[in-house]
């Protein structure tokens, strides 16, 4: 056992990569839940994003177009959720689960001819001089553009929710849809937009896995990240910066766990592997004392009855 073999700088840099798919999906879901909608279909939207992005970037040779396609693909799938929950007023929990089932199947069908192909790669940010700086170079300036997009998105969501009128309306709709409706806001329209945004973000997160993190296409390759993203939103008590923190914590615990193993620390692996979940529960219990609560209308069906 030799803990000095673990390089903290590289560890931080690689946990940022590990956290990005989670972050992207979770920040989208945060907006959805802020509008009072619970979409459990994140895993389904991610995997559809993963294959849409993969297929398009292989066909066009451009990872950028791939990410655009991933966002569109995720949003299109979430449109189904819109129809179910906003038009047909179906139960959101069941609709979300059905969405995941459908998305997993659909992605596998679409991806049949993309197994075993290597996608075009995306260049990393490389600013001569700065990216080579010790410590901050690899952590802050040595990543792919999408990683920065994830952080920028977090900042944007935070700013919009906190400082803009649009954010205020979104929160109002999530807190009390009847009151928001009475004030003349288009509850359904706002929620539709939020759901589509969430779908697009989840799609980006999925494509980050299939295009950058892994990169390859395999059926079911998101392997449960979508569920963790869902957990993350609650974990973060619906606050954007806490989502970022939580994503790094989650990604971090996994990376640290593997690092400890490689350094030869003799801890039973299965207990290390369950540690991210146990730590989440622990943090959750501590955060429960916090008074910030879920959007009051979360998961409730809205019907304008005049």
């Amino acid at each position, binding site marked *: 056992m030799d803990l000095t073999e673990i390089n903290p700088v590289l560890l931080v840099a690689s946990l940022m990569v590990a956290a990005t798919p989670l972050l992207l999906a979770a920040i989208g879901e945060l907006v959805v839940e802020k509008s009072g909608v619970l979409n459990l279909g994140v895993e389904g939207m991610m995997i559809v994003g993963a294959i849409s992005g993969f297929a398009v970037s292989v066909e066009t040779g451009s990872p950028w177009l791939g990410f655009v396609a991933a966002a569109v693909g995720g949003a299109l799938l979430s449109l189904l959720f819109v129809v179910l929950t906003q038009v047909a007023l179906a139960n959101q929990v069941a609709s979300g689960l059905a969405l995941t089932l459908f998305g997993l199947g659909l992605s596998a069908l679409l991806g049949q001819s993309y197994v*075993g192909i290597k996608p075009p790669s995306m260049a990393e940010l490389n600013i001569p001089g700065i990216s080579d700086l010790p410590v901050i170079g690899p952590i802050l300036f040595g990543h792919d553009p999408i990683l920065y997009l994830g952080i920028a998105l977090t900042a944007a969501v935070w700013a919009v929710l906190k400082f803009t009128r649009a954010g205020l309306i979104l929160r109002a709709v999530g807190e009390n849809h009847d009151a928001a409706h009475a004030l003349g806001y288009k509850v359904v329209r706002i929620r539709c937009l939020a759901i589509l945004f969430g779908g697009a973000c989840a799609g980006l997160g999925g494509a980050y896995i299939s295009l950058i993190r892994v990169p390859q296409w395999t059926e079911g390759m998101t392997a449960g990240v979508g569920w963790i993203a869902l957990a993350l939103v609650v974990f973060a008590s619906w606050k954007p910066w806490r989502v970022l923190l939580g994503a790094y914590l989650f990604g971090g615990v996994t990376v640290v766990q593997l690092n400890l193993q490689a350094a030869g620390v003799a801890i039973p692996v299965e207990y290390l592997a369950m540690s991210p979940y146990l730590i989440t529960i622990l943090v959750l219990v501590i955060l429960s004392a916090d008074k910030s609560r879920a959007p009051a209308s979360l998961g409730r069906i809205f019907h304008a009855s005049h």
Partner: protein
Amino acid sequence: MKFTSLLATAAMAIGLATGAVAQDKTKVGFVYVGPVGDGGWTYEHDKGRQAVEAHFGDKVETVFVESVPEGPDAERVMTQMALEGADLIFTTSFGYMDPTINVAKKFPDVKFEHATGYKTADNVSVYSARFYEGRAVQGHIAGKMTKSNIVGYIGSYPIPEVIRGINSAFIHARKVNPDVEFKIVWAYTWFDPAKEADAATVLIEQGADVILQHTDSTAPQAAAQKAGNVITFGQASDMSEYAPLPRVSSIIDNWAPYYIARTQAVMDGSWESANTWDGIGPGMVEIGEISDAVPAELKAEALALKDAIASGEYHPFTGPLNKQDGSAWLAEGEVADDGTLAGMNFYVEGIEGEIPQ
């Protein structure tokens, strides 16, 4: 015997009879644990199935069901195939062992082939591949190629199959490089590309410049390519899209010759229950093209080792070998018996760390 079961047996017999009359083609069923698009384990089995179709043409009909969970679902799928007149059924996951035996009891006229298990019956054969033979070649290349003397190894679960591979690779790496060390990381999953990528990255960050993997995705290859100056080996399939670097060679599961031979045996009526454990020699394990990134001299050595194993002249587990705790295992010149290998649950001397229990 109760009345209902009598009824069931009778009905099954009728079902079988009608099935047999309706067709003179040999019907071969395949039960897969993953999707055929997994690019690894199931993908290679399905290539074997396609080879059977290509080889026999109109004389066979193949059917398959993918992503079948181990347990009662597998039992149902096998029964269904048997009811519909399959003559031969390949069940391609260790967890299908007991279901295969159960179903085989009900259909004495149908032949079953179970991959990687150990329970046989009159109409149940088992077959598996000696992947550790390929690991020996990998270990040799890894030991010679590493500059940091640290080889990273990504394991799935600590089961005999995986432990055997680690030991085999380690023995042959140490043989050519006494300073080499293995860093072993257990992913505790069969399939999670993202986690495999993390594991590879971690190993590289901790100094490994060779990555061996016992998981099926190409994620570690991509991680190695990104890091640069790291070599890897393809697993299960060739992964040639990562050649010549980082992927310098690979172990390929090639089930086609076995599947064709067994199907032929059923056609001829010469099928018998067997316990097959084939390696490089009969072609069940293939060593993928060794790329030019490997020096010609080393490539020749690796190929010579491969040929020696193939011809049976050399066994990868030949003494003197000690277990990790220093106790003697194999004496000078002694060769490991298959029973010990099949259930291997210890590291050989020199590997650090413990097998998680």
